[in-house]
């Protein structure tokens, strides 16, 4: 199923930086509108209204109604490890009563653009950040505790688990400040200790705030 899409830009997009092919292939008008850069506007005349998310939930834009929320407005984020280039994965965010036709149209838009699409409930951190941020916090803590050298922790994960890169090199490449911000939002939302940013992320954040 081919779906045209139009783009409405509210600010800088983490998913589709300037020059991204997805931007070039947009139409002036279409049944699917894609809102980039931290803004959204409901439009029930459209098949789907797609809202780019960073660390916020879709409910921030739609409101929530005792678990019955859902409309043609969906969230999405192209997964990106901090300052790394965006990946080829789109996390599509739905609510309990999201419109199925909107989901189908959103999937069609992104798949036609060559992205792998997964569907996540509207939970903080969606799929990936919810799972990897505690792991990065653990790895940073292990480093502090002297379990092994950073290079050996990374080597172990690459060769023992088949990861493309190790957790220390990955979280540092993406930026410890970014990691702090994502982890802190998860921690504030759920209160689970695993989400609490590791000491090294606190240090990086304090330095970026001019306290170093």
């Amino acid at each position, binding site marked *: 199923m081919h779906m045209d899409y139009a783009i409405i830009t509210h600010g800088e997009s983490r998913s589709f930086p300037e020059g991204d092919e997805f931007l070039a292939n947009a139409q002036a008008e279409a049944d699917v509108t894609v809102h980039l850069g931290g803004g959204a506007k409901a439009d029930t005349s459209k098949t789907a209204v797609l809202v780019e998310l960073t660390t916020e939930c879709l409910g921030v834009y739609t409101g929530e109604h005792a678990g019955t929320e859902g409309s043609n407005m969906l969230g999405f984020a192209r997964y990106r490890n901090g300052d790394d280039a965006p990946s080829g994965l789109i996390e599509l965010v739905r609510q309990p009563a999201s419109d199925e036709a909107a989901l189908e149209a959103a999937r069609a838009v992104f798949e036609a653009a060559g992205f792998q699409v997964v569907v996540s409930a509207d*939970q903080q951190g969606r799929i990936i950040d919810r799972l990897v941020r505690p792991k990065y916090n*653990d790895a940073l803590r292990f480093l502090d505790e002297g379990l*092994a050298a950073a290079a050996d922790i990374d080597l172990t994960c690459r060769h023992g688990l088949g990861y493309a890169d190790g957790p220390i090199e990955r979280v540092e490449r993406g930026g410890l400040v970014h990691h702090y911000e994502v982890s802190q939002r998860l921690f504030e939302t759920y209160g689970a200790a695993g989400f609490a940013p590791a000491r090294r992320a606190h240090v990086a954040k304090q330095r970026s705030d001019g306290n170093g």
Partner: protein
Amino acid sequence: MTDQIKTVGVCGAAGTMGAGIAIVSARAGFRTLCFDMAEEGLAKAKAQSEGFFAKSVERGKMTPEDQEAALANLSATTKLEDLAACDLVIEAVFEDLRVKQDLLGQLDGICPPRTLFASNTSTLSITQIAAGCERQDKVVGMHFCLPAQLMKLIEMSPGLNTSEESFQAAWAWTEAAGQMPVKTQDKPGFILNALLVPFNNDAIRAVEAGVASPADIDTAIKHGLGYKMGPLELIDLIGLDTQVRLCEAFYPITHDPRAATPPLLSRMVAAGHLGRKVGRGFYTYDGNAMFGG
């Protein structure tokens, strides 16, 4: 001491990990004595090893001559006393401290004083395991990755009483066996399981919390992070019952709530959804061939 390791014993050789370790050892040219309690288990492991080597030849990873030599290096026994001939004994038995301590205690009375003992434990303390025998200076942690016959990495951990000479000898053996050792402290789960057990549990809890389907979680992790396997595929491979045992070994030591057995995992194990080995876990499967070759 490294040059003196000619014969390697593998305890628990009928298990997935033990059979893989035996392949690694035999393939590298060491006489390898596979010990387990039941003959039928050893026979099955032998058949799997033969199949693995045959596939390795088919895929050009091994010559027929090397295959023949590797198979000739493998022998099996159900008598623990036969391990008296070993220079190095690697245990890969049930992940239970008492079981491992008892085994090393028995081996202590069987093997000559020079024999090194290595434990493939993934969660338990090497120091505590070593406390089951008198030669605590000759006990090292040697945690292979699953599937051992394909994965090069080994986490090497000295216990508090392990001598540097023993550790270096064991380290050198892993290199001679073509593996890639990495040193870690003797801490719960070392590196791999300390990261992996809570991570896998988080993935199970995400399924239970309705965050996403198992397939979407695995796809997200593979495509977003570049992992070769998603966490739920991996749990299906290692077995959901094994994941429960890892939690049961890990949580009482660490008291990390993320290491506690997720309720969904307990329910799936109770329902017999144990993963690939039974054809049903987070996914359904046809066939149960040994990995790789």
